[in-house]
């Protein structure tokens, strides 16, 4: 009741105030006709609050989103199951699922006079052209009365998250140079005999040769362990994305950052499909979720795309260098740059130096704000030993990628392919 009284709308409060005023005036002036009006107006919100406040409904909601990861422009479906576990509500229930506006219109439902045990299932599509992670829900419930005098707001708590990944385009296969062999696939390599520290062990299985038992590890673990005779080699690639604010131009969907993210996502998918284990490095450093060590070499691009889905600009002026400090040299580095400034040159050189093969897509960022011809960093990159192409707002990424392949064919001699062991 108290809650319902607090939930009086402006109309309800105005009615109450006007009614009380009318009654007081009528009593003072002795106008019984006015008293009637006053009583009617004052009693109406109170009665309504009483009725609404006594409403004992209880709604249960189950929410699922499938799939939870979609590419931009693709649909996901939200399904809701609603059950009334209490009594029939005395007011009108106005339900609104709080969907971010990018995902489409907020679905709204009106429930009225639902009985006990009432159950309904509904699905609705959501779709976004903008990458990102979105929380769908919670469902807001407004309880309203037939005269619009009382309105109670209640909210469910659960939300479901939906990740919208950047758009990707399939890229043509070009010689990359980062792979161990021409096949580009992971292949088991004979384990180079080395020190004991290099030894990797696994559990003993029936049929393993006893001579392969690694006694030292077995003593430590307490179970039989055997040496692994072979070591899977990985084709490792580093995908670098410059997401500094100063490197990009434009806002929102039309910004150069979005083009860069989309290009990076396409390259990531392409590299994964070619068997590379890709880690994502941004201006802030290595993304821990997509580090090399945490992942097997498979075709699962989801963590990379998820990471790319939530990439935003960062304010820092310089690129992080922490990830370069690691001892691991070699491998393929594909970088997507925005504008390149002179202070980055040293870092670019270091990156190229550590990489077995350094490819770059440099965005002609000024073209995104309508100032073409300012030049991109391709020349500077080439000078530092990168294989680089320029990407403008109207260029097709697959064409540019093809061009990158051609430029690599032209520049030709890239040093020894990297061999990186885990």
């Amino acid at each position, binding site marked *: 009741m108290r809650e319902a009284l607090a939930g009086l709308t402006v109309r309800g409060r105005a009615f109450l105030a006007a009614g009380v005023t009318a009654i007081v005036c009528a009593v003072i002036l002795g106008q019984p006709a*006015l008293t*009637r009006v006053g009583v009617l107006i004052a009693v109406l919100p109170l009665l309504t609050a009483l009725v609404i406040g006594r409403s004992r409904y209880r709604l249960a909601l*189950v929410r699922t989103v499938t799939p939870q990861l979609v590419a931009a422009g693709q649909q996901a479906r939200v399904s809701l199951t609603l059950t009334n576990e*209490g009594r029939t509500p005395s007011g009108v229930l106005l339900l609104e699922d709080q969907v971010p506006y990018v995902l489409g219109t907020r679905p709204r439902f009106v429930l009225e006079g*639902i009985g006990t045990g009432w159950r309904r299932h509904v699905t609705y599509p959501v779709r976004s052209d903008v990458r990102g992670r979105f929380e769908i829900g919670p469902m807001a419930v407004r309880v309203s009365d*037939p005269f*619009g005098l009382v309105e109670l707001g209640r909210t*469910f708590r659960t939300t479901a998250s939906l990740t919208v990944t950047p758009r990707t385009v399939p890229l043509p296969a070009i010689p990359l140079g980062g792979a161990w062999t021409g096949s580009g696939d992971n292949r088991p390599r004979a384990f180079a005999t080395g020190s004991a520290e290099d030894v990797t062990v696994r559990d003993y299985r029936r049929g393993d040769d006893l001579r392969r038992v690694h006694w030292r590890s077995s003593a430590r673990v307490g179970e039989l362990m055997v040496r692994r005779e072979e070591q899977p080699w990985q084709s490792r690639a580093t995908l670098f994305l410059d997401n500094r604010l100063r490197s990009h131009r434009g806002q929102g969907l039309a910004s150069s950052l979005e083009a860069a993210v989309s290009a990076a996502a396409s390259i990531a998918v392409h590299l994964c499909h070619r068997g590379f284990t890709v880690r994502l490095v941004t201006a802030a450093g290595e993304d821990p979720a997509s580090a090399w060590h945490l992942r097997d070499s498979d075709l699962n691009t989801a963590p990379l795309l998820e990471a790319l889905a939530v990439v935003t600009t960062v304010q820092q002026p310089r690129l992080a260098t922490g990830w370069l400090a690691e001892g691991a040299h070699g491998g393929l580095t594909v970088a997507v740059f925005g504008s390149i400034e002179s202070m980055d040159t040293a870092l670019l050189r270091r990156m190229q130096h550590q990489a077995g093969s350094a490819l770059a897509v440099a965005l002609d960022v000024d073209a995104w704000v309508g100032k073409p011809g300012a030049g991109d960093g391709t020349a500077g990159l080439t000078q530092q030993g990168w294989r680089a192409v320029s990407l403008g707002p109207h260029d097709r990424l697959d064409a540019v990628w093809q061009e990158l392949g051609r430029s690599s064919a032209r520049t030709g001699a890239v040093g020894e392919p990297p061999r990186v062991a885990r």
Partner: protein
Amino acid sequence: MRGRDLSSQLALALTAAATTWVALLSWSGFTAQPGRFLGPLLLLGLVLAGLGAVLRSSRVPGWAVVPLQLLAAGASASFLLSGSPVPAGPAGERLVETLSDAWATAGEYAAPVPASVPGVHPLLILGGLVLLLLVDLLACTLRRAPVAGLVLLAIYAIPVGAVGGGVSWWVFVATAAGFLTLLFLQESEQVGRWGRPLGTDAGEVDPAGFGVRTGAIRGSAGGIGAVAIALAVALPLFIPTLQLQVFDFGRGPGGGSNITIVNPMTDLRRDLTRPRDVPLLQVRTDDPDPTYLRISVLNRFSSNEWSSGDRNVPPDQVADGRMPPMVGVASGVNRTNHDYEVRVGTNFASSWLPTQAPVSRVRAPGDWRYDSSTMDFIAYERGLSTAGLSYEMTATKLDIQAADLARATSSSGLVDRLFTELPPGLPTSVRNIANSVTRDAPTRFEKAVALQNWFRRTGGFTYDTDVAAGNGTDELVAFLSDTPTGRTGYCEQFASAYAVLARVLGIPARVAVGFLEPRSVGPRTWEFSAHDLHAWPELFFPGAGWVRFEPTPSGRASSVPQYTTQEVPAFNPTAQPSTAQPSDQLPDRGESGGPSLRPDEAGQGGSGEAGFPWPWVLGVLGAVVGIGLLLLVPRVVRRARRGRRLDAGPEAAWRELAETVTDLGIPWPAGRSPRQTRHHLVEFFGAPADGRRPERPAHGPGLAPDAVLALDRIVDRIERGRYSRAGDDGCSVRADLEACLAALEAGASRAAVRRAHWWPRSVVSRRSRQVRDVDAEVSPTRDGGVVDHVG
């Protein structure tokens, strides 16, 4: 879509128009012929509502709808008033003429305006039209139904302020119901628009969605509205009683204009007993018999004295010309007018203006105001008196016939109750005298004549100014008592005693104070002096108005009104339908003015026959009935709950079972599965009894195998609903439930069943009610999702 839009628009617009029209019914009191403006307004309202609905549903913008409506309404109004839709040329002149006539009438006549003069209905039609347009604009075009309520309030409040009377309760109820319907329609339309999915992907969304509109909300709206209106009608009955005790503002509306007046009776006695006669005022008139010049009227009789009571003198009731029509005088009564010029001497300073009664025109310098019910004139300005005043008036002499008076109907409801009010402590001896004196007179008028004869001739009264002044209850008893000192007095005692006895008989009566008979001092010139001061009673008879009687013996007042000496023909209603038009006998309600016609005062005139303590008996009876109804409430609530649950599916049936078990005093096992509960319950099943049931029947599962099977079926349905993936279809289990309930009752003792019926624990005990937390809670479910609760 379009059709639904039109129908909803039409419903809204028609409700708005109908509500406004019903509210305009409260203006009926302005004119004697309310049909002349209500009929056209109904037509106009329909035109406006229909036009507005059609325009709005065809997406004409609001700024265009209003001028179009205005145009149509103006043309229709012009057609109704002048016969041509375009108010130009002769039709325009006619329209202007009609309106100016109406304006003049409105300025001249008080409400209700009689039928004989050019009516005010054109003004009312125009006003009503504007209000109809306003309500339509606010409620339909702008969708602000609550604001339209202000317009309705204005309509409703105008008669309260202008006529002074209230508005009948059914007009209020109808208006309130209409207003609430408007609110509801607008709100449900808003809700309907809220729930509709926006955008073009509406087709992709499941068309039904969750949306459920069962119309149940209409029921709750009706319930809330009905209770609110009932309270609004009932509660004010209790509020004003409180108000009258706290604020002693008197009974008239408009607290500022009431004046309590000093009693003129004391002046009367002092002047009568003055040793030397002093000429006080001169009149010049063509009236051959200018007697009974009235100064003031005493209309309130309390235990202590007759007093002039309160006067309601609004600023427009000034003695500056024509007076309102006479109260209660039939139009068929012959009347003659006599002009008077009055010159008051400087030695007669009165705050009351001496006038004839009845009077049709008074023009006096200064702010002299009159009360429409007493028609006596009081100086409204401080310091204003009659000393040295000259003024003129036109007196109307009515040719009243005894036969007409004898046929007069009951006056109840036609005059204020004040005129029949008697103090509660009036001795029974007074009532007995009144009844015994008039025992043989059949009609009210003949009773009045009999009283007059008794005072003048047969009662043995003596005129003597040498008695103590006073006219309260004690003096009255002394004056009427047949003792050596009794039945002696002067005009004050005679007039007041006569008026009291008339009131005992149920005839409205008052005491007039004035001059009795002038002395001729020249051609058509007369002089009233101090010894002419007199008091006489006036009685109200429908059809004749206030009629003078003369109870003072002939030693003082030589003549009596001629109609009191006429022979009254034997009154036989069936013998003379052709000679007497019944409508002539009834007072023309149109000509009687003011608050005296309030219908809510009808039928309450007969307070004189109070002897039996009706209020007490009624109060006790009401209390008994109220307590009885209160005792019925738990039973009614319980039955309503059961009625709702019988068809509402197995879960509701289960709850009903639980409540019935609680009512019967059987413990309901908490926290057990349905099947375990079932094993517990079947122990209490009894055999269906035929004929008289034993006080403590046997119970057990073997006694009611059918009910056990029915319970099994219910349990099965419950389990399906709760545990199976497919869920339950929610069909009714009514028959099974009824079998179980009957078996439970058959197994319970008679006292338990009685208590379950009349004082069900599930209703009256708070403990049995489930405590629910309002907060939402989250719990995992079997299918991986998360169940979220709100409620």
